[in-house]
């Protein structure tokens, strides 16, 4: 039996597939004081229910927030940093930029290593890799003694220009390891790339979470063995592949975006099954919405991410809000729009949704837990889109009267509009904000969203998907089975994957085939140790000489004139993204990348918890043209492959899909709700 376990801030989701293909799912509350507890409890329930002995488990695939959580809650290790003399403040100075303009209350993220614990040693590697000043080992002894006296448990090292020559870092690494039982992270192991702040930051984040993640995974592994299983434990990486827990424990900076990546992997796997190569994954929960792109069956990746950067679209442009890390990750855009986003009227008389969120406490007004400010969930309830009997299968009853009264008083009356107009407006503004997230991963990357299918999941995704698709001109929306558990399914469809990188920084025409072969062979050897028998894919990052941002070009297995091929691939990509290319300008190769992977297992996605209850109806509002309308409420199993015309509402166990008037929807052979906007 294989089990996927997705641990989020609120819920822990488990999906188990038996050897015969039977699927069982279980959802329980997360246990933030010890995230592993919910995993073990949930696993117990599943094993018990399916009468499976623990020894019959063959693989556990885990998406975890433990790394992110350690950073956000400031519960990482007491970390020290050793740098080249003159550069200990690089970590705190950062790149100076503010992620918000015109805000006197702006604060930079607090450095994960305070100035006192950042020590300098005399050494210097020149930009061409030669040793300019030999590493002063007396300085090193002093730094070690100081950090030991401060009871530091994890040490990061980042020397200037070590991306060209790591000799000094390697040497101090040896000295540090033999000096104590702390964990050591060298920048040349984590990110051998130019730009000292980004490299230092990535190294420090790794060092900061390393002991926490190691402890978590070791304990978990121990508990699983006690339970009676020796099945491999694998962890979802930010880049969308999985790796063994041991590897994850050594380089935890790679699993920071573990959770969100799983949903994108699920989308790609779903696309593969239904024969659709171009998809936009759209995941909306209680507080945030995320979008990512799959083109030609491939998940689009990025190399930069800010942990704890708060959520803002401007973050993509301005940065500076969080701790930057440079690791392969799914290219996600995230906006702070969710059921808890607060509605208000600004001084100019316009309706605003967010950026404040009512969160889980006090939550929306309709939860009756003391919330006094109207939220998006309140608006969706007033519009009749949500079932007043309640969310999560009726476990939480909603107070529609309270939501209505609050919306009238705080928003509708001040705007001199009816409550339905205001609620519908809020619904549409929220959709528009999420549209910007989709644009950020499509239009801003040079991809036309109209050529994609929108796959909507998460608790609230299917409620807004059609609105967004209309705004973006997307022809088709797909709501998969079990939208609320979709990410956990994704874990079981992910492949083993391991990435290696080498910086070259050479004009594309000067790239010697033997150099390229040597570098790729080195990376391949490393990768094959991690994943025996892996397939390999090669790519290069290129730019015009002078630019600071690269575009990635795949290197085919058969290469004739590598330089010419890379240049052509780059120019095509540049023209698509920016509308021009500079034919006579020199192009340079910045990095070579190798990705090793095994074929992905088949996604076991199927409908769960479907009840075929009687159909129901309730009044819902879709705009002044139609007014209030009595709308059918059906379960997924009541839909057929024959399209039905909206308005109607599809209620799953943990999500609600809205099919507006005049829009056609049907069930496909895999149980997805397919909404066609062009028919």
């Amino acid at each position, binding site marked *: 039996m294989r089990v996927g376990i997705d641990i989020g801030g609120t819920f822990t989701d488990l999906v188990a597939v038996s050897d015969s293909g039977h699927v069982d799912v279980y959802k329980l509350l997360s246990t933030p004081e010890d995230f592993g507890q919910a995993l073990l409890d949930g696993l117990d329930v599943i094993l018990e229910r399916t009468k499976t002995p623990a020894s019959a488990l063959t693989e556990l695939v885990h998406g975890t927030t433990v790394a992110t959580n350690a950073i956000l809650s400031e519960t990482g290790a007491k970390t020290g940093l050793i740098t080249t003399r003159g550069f200990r*403040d690089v970590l705190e100075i950062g790149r100076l930029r*503010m992620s918000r303009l*015109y805000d006197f*209350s702006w604060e930079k993220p607090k450095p994960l290593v*305070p100035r006192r614990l950042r020590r300098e040693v005399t050494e210097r590697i020149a930009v061409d890799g030669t040793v300019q000043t030999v590493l002063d080992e007396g300085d090193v002894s002093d730094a070690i003694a100081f950090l030991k006296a401060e009871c530091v448990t994890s040490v990061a090292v980042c020397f200037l220009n070590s991306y060209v020559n790591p000799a000094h870092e390697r040497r101090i690494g040896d000295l540090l390891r033999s000096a104590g039982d702390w964990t050591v992270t060298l920048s040349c192991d984590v990110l051998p790339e130019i730009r000292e702040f980004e490299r230092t930051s990535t190294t420090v984040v790794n060092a900061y979470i390393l002991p926490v993640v190691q402890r978590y995974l070791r304990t978990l592994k121990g508990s699983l063995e006690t339970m009676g299983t020796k099945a491999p434990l694998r962890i979802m990486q930010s880049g969308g592949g999985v790796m063994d827990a041991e590897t994850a424990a050594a380089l935890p900076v790679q699993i920071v975006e573990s959770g969100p990546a799983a949903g994108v992997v699920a989308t790609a796997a779903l696309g593969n099954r239904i024969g659709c190569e171009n998809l936009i994954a759209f995941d909306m929960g209680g507080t945030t919405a995320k979008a990512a792109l799959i083109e030609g069956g491939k998940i689009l990746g990025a190399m930069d991410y800010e942990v704890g950067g708060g959520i803002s679209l401007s973050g993509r442009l301005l940065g500076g809000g969080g701790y930057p890390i440079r690791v392969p990750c799914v290219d996600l855009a995230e906006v702070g729009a969710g059921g808890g986003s607060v509605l208000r009227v600004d001084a100019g008389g316009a309706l605003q949704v967010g950026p404040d969120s009512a969160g889980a406490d006090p939550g929306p007004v309709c939860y009756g837990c003391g919330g006094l400010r109207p939220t998006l969930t309140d608006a969706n309830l007033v519009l009749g889109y949500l079932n007043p009997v309640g969310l999560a299968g009726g476990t939480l009853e909603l107070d529609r009267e309270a939501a209505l009264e609050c919306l009238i008083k705080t928003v509708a009356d001040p705007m001199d509009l009816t409550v339905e107009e205001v609620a519908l407006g809020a619904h549409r503004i929220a959709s528009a904000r999420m549209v*910007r997230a989709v644009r950020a991963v499509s239009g801003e990357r040079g991809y036309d969203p109209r050529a994609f299918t929108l796959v909507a999941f998460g608790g609230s995704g299917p409620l807004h998907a059609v609105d967004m698709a209309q705004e973006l001109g997307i022809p088709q929306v797909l709501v998969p089975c079990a939208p609320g558990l979709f990410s956990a399914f994704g874990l079981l469809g992910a492949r083993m994957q391991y990435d290696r990188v080498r910086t070259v920084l050479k004009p594309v025409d000067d790239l010697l085939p033997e150099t390229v072969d040597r570098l790729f062979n080195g990376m391949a050897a490393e990768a094959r140790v991690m994943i025996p028998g892996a397939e390999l894919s090669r790519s290069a990052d290129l730019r015009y000489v002078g*630019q*600071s941002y690269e575009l990635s070009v795949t290197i085919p297995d058969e290469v004739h004139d590598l330089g010419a091929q890379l240049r052509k691939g780059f120019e095509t990509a540049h023209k698509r993204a920016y509308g021009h290319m500079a034919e006579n300008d020199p192009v340079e190769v910045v990095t070579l990348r190798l990705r090793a992977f095994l074929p992905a297992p088949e996604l076991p996605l199927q409908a769960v918890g479907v009840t075929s209850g009687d159909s129901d109806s309730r009044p819902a509002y879709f705009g002044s043209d139609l007014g209030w309308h009595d709308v059918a409420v059906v379960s997924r199993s009541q839909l057929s492959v024959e399209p039905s015309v909206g308005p109607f509402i599809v209620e799953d166990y943990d999500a609600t899909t809205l099919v507006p008037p005049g829009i056609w929807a049907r069930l496909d052979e895999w149980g997805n709700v397919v909404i066609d906007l062009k028919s």
Partner: protein
Amino acid sequence: MSFFDPIELELLKNGLESVVDEMALTIVRTAYSTNLKNSMDFSTGLCDTEGNLVAQGLCLPLHLGSLPDGLAAILNRYRDDIEDGDVFILNDPYEGGTHLPDIYLYKPIFIDRTLLGFAAAIAHHTDIGGRVAGGNACDSTEIYQEGLRIPPVKLYEAGQPIQAIFDIIERNVRVPRNALGDLRAQLAACHICEQACYRMATRYGLDRFKAGFSELLLYAERLTRSEISAFPDGVYAFTDQLDDDGIDPDPIPITFTLTISGDRLIADFEGTAPQVRGAINSALSFTKSAVYACLRCLMSPDVPTNSGCFRCLDVRVPEATLANPVLPAPVAARGLTGFRLANTIMGALAQMAPDRVPACEVGGDTGISIGGYTADRTPFVFLEFLFGAWGGRPDRDGIDGCASIVVNFSNNPAEVIEAEYPLEILQYGFLPDTGGAGKYRGGLSLIREYRFTETEGILQIRSDRYISHPYGLQGGKPGALSRNILNPDDEARELPGKCLIPLKKGDVFCHVLAGAGGWGHPFERDTERVLEDVQNEKISIESAKRDFGVVIDSKTSTIDSEATIALRRKR
């Protein structure tokens, strides 16, 4: 009548903002020079047919007034001669621009042969020719010395490039490949805007889309008026100064008076020094930008950044002054003056809103240019602007190491500088005991050291605050002064704030930025925060005692409470 209800208008606003941000991302990703791709010294926007700014990218607040003023200059000449496929260019500070390195591009956008508006992109080019590499010399005395001066002309006509203009630019700048690469980045941004407008016009319909522009301007005006009405009525004046203009030794006062009366606001620079001989005069539209950027900080984030907001702000600047020069005054290094104008305006705003405005920030004053030729006669021009620190705030400390609130710049990675220029960075960090003492401490000075590795070059420094300190507020102390030192471990020659000196191989140049001002009396500072600063080596034990009245035992690293209370009582 209104084409948009408030909800649809919000949707239109979001849509346009994402277009201008997308333009900005395009420049970051495609530009060649460090000053654009790393520092983001550029602005993007969309203007209507009358030259009003409708939306501006999240770029550079100190460019806020520039986009509409540049377009006004173009409309002045070409109103009846604009066709699809044209692109206009200018950089003349006396006709639409603010200083020669800032090149403005405007691309008219036509939908069904009707002019919808203009995509606009301003970019600060690293070199624009003239007598000193880097385009920021303080000691020029006429605009004619400062480089290539481009009046409003067409760069493209009906889709065809005007090759002569490209050729003239290429022939006049030191590193043409970079200049043309950066110009292409600007064109790409305009192209992205045009494509997005086509899509939006299809969705909204042209007439409705155009009407939306005016409604957004009215909406911003309404919001701005309501913000001004909420400001307390009164007259608030403040004077700050520049140390000198690099030619004459005298300090240069800037005086600013803000008058609020109901929903009217008058920003007046009466009393500011006459225009100076050196190149730090600030063109009128740049002065207006400083006012807009500062006032914007006191307004709600909901206010859209467009001309509707600006037209509520009545900015008055006497002619032939530092803040509104006339021909042939040189203006290349006016960036420095922009920062001081902002410091001055903030000083006045701090009287109006003492509970919100921070003490004096630091950053942007300093521009470092190093130019020359390598052994094989290849030209190089290195240019960077150094930031910065925030002053202490009414409820919290300033920030150590941060961009200016009016110019959200980034810094350049040392490793990138070393890979691209004949320079080594020897040091980049905080200098202890430099932030203005206060209940809330001002940010620390940053020190940066460069070693020159080519045979010969010219170093040009534009800096200030080596005579006049960044001010503190409400009893907070001023920040430390800035310094320039040549070969600090050797001859340790102190250089003036503005100068031009030759460099030889191995020379080390060290710049120390000023420290930011403190807020509130330092003896009111939480003693634990003082101890933390000492532990983090941001202030010395001596400073803790002398400036903050906190006595710390150096052996145990603990506070001597009794001695501290006794010392603080003597305040």
